[in-house]
């Protein structure tokens, strides 16, 4: 069975460069013939081929230079970056997927919509996780390939990372990055919704979901809040950036965090106590469908809203308190 030898040689040489191919093929065949020493039985051929080893490994030995996509030196950085980028991509896909499919469902009934939303969102998360994987891998393969040749990589002892501080409460990087991503996404969306209030929230004209008959928010009142809300989003972005920078709770992170929380609570109270915020015509329209009067609607809404504002402010207060404890406790211990 001469075929076996040819197949073996082919399996080795197909993994080599064109320049090596013909020479290795000729020499390897000659070597195998020598090793067979006249006994061309199938068993002997198999014995010799097994002795030569797996064609893949033999080809690696012939190739001389080790080959890899990402060199072992970069592997650890690659894996860490991969983890963070996949989390960011997946959370963006989750948020946008949810919004897109809940707002424009194709299914007709509620069960269908739930299934549609679930499966399309899961699909989109997987898709963007794969994109993240591909992007990070390509970038690192590029870095790894470009640095392969200068063997003694120049490095500067001044650029060594600082030691992590002891006795401080750490903030996980992933958590801060997710926080940053989410506050940017939700911030932008919310500003957009408030700005486009006229087209999104309100009583729609009968079966036609394209035009709003009576809008929910009072456009002139809501416009006053947009700049305040943008400031609050910027504050939250700043907090997350500081968290990423320091990686632990310290005075500046805690201070900005407190300012951000207090500011949001103030906005919330301004919002909740502003009785003109909701278009009164909206309540009149609502009242026309029920036995409740427009006045009761309006009153109930603002009571509920104020209640919510109190609840949020209590939660914020607890949060701020616990963060100052986290920040200051290690200082007292020292």
């Amino acid at each position, binding site marked *: 069975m001469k075929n076996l030898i040819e197949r073996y040689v082919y399996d080795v040489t197909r993994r080599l460069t064109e320049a090596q191919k013909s*020479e*290795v093929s*000729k*020499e*390897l065949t*000659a*070597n195998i*013939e*020598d*090793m067979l020493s006249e006994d061309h039985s199938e068993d002997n051929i198999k014995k010799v081929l097994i*002795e*030569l*080893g797996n064609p893949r*490994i*033999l080809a690696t*030995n*012939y190739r*001389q230079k080790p080959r890899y996509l990402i060199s072992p030196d970069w592997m650890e950085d690659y894996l860490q970056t991969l983890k963070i980028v996949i989390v960011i991509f997946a959370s963006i896909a989750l948020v946008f997927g949810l919004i897109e499919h809940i707002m424009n469902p194709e299914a007709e009934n509620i069960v269908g919509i739930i299934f549609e939303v679930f499966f399309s969102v899961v699909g989109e998360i997987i898709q963007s996780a794969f994109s993240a994987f591909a992007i990070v891998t390509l970038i690192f393969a590029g870095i790894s390939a470009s640095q392969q040749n200068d063997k003694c990589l120049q490095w500067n002892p001044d650029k060594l990372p600082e030691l992590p501080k002891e006795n401080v409460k750490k903030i996980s990087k992933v958590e801060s990055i997710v926080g940053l991503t989410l506050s940017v996404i939700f911030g932008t969306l919310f500003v957009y919704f408030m700005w486009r209030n006229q087209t999104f929230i309100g009583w729609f004209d009968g079966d036609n979901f394209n035009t709003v008959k009576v809008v929910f928010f009072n456009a002139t009142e809501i416009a006053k809040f947009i700049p305040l809300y943008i400031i609050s989003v910027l504050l939250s972005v700043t907090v997350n950036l500081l968290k990423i920078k320091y990686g632990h709770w310290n005075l500046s992170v805690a201070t900005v965090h407190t300012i951000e929380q207090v500011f949001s609570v103030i906005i919330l109270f301004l919002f909740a106590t502003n009785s003109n915020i909701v278009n009164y015509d909206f309540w009149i329209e609502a009242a026309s469908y029920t036995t409740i009067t427009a006045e009761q609607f309006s009153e109930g809404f603002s009571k509920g809203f104020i209640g919510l504002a109190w609840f949020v402010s209590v939660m914020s207060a607890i949060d701020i308190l616990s963060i100052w404890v986290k920040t200051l406790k290690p200082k007292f211990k020292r």
Partner: protein
Amino acid sequence: MIDQEIFNNMKSELRRGTQILAVLSQLNQNQYGYSLLQNLEEKNINIEAGTLYPLLRRLESQGLLKSEWDTTESRPRKYYLLSDDGKTIYQLLVEEWKKIMDEMNNLFKGDTK
């Protein structure tokens, strides 16, 4: 109980460095792949065929060996021989090997005292 696998790994790592020296030492005369393999085997130097053949090509591309196809026999064979550079490097490596032996022996002696 020692871990046999750890020991085997260390042993083959230690021996791997001597393989090139062993191969060079036999190439003062023309040899083809398989004859060299048998030659080494007779002297109890075990090197796998799958390691030796690529190694010969590598040493040739580094200019330590020169090669020639002999097509006069019934089947063609590629013969290898030390080049002038190869001879020089072989001599240097032998001296290095002796130095290593002396140094190691010195260490071992100091250890048993």
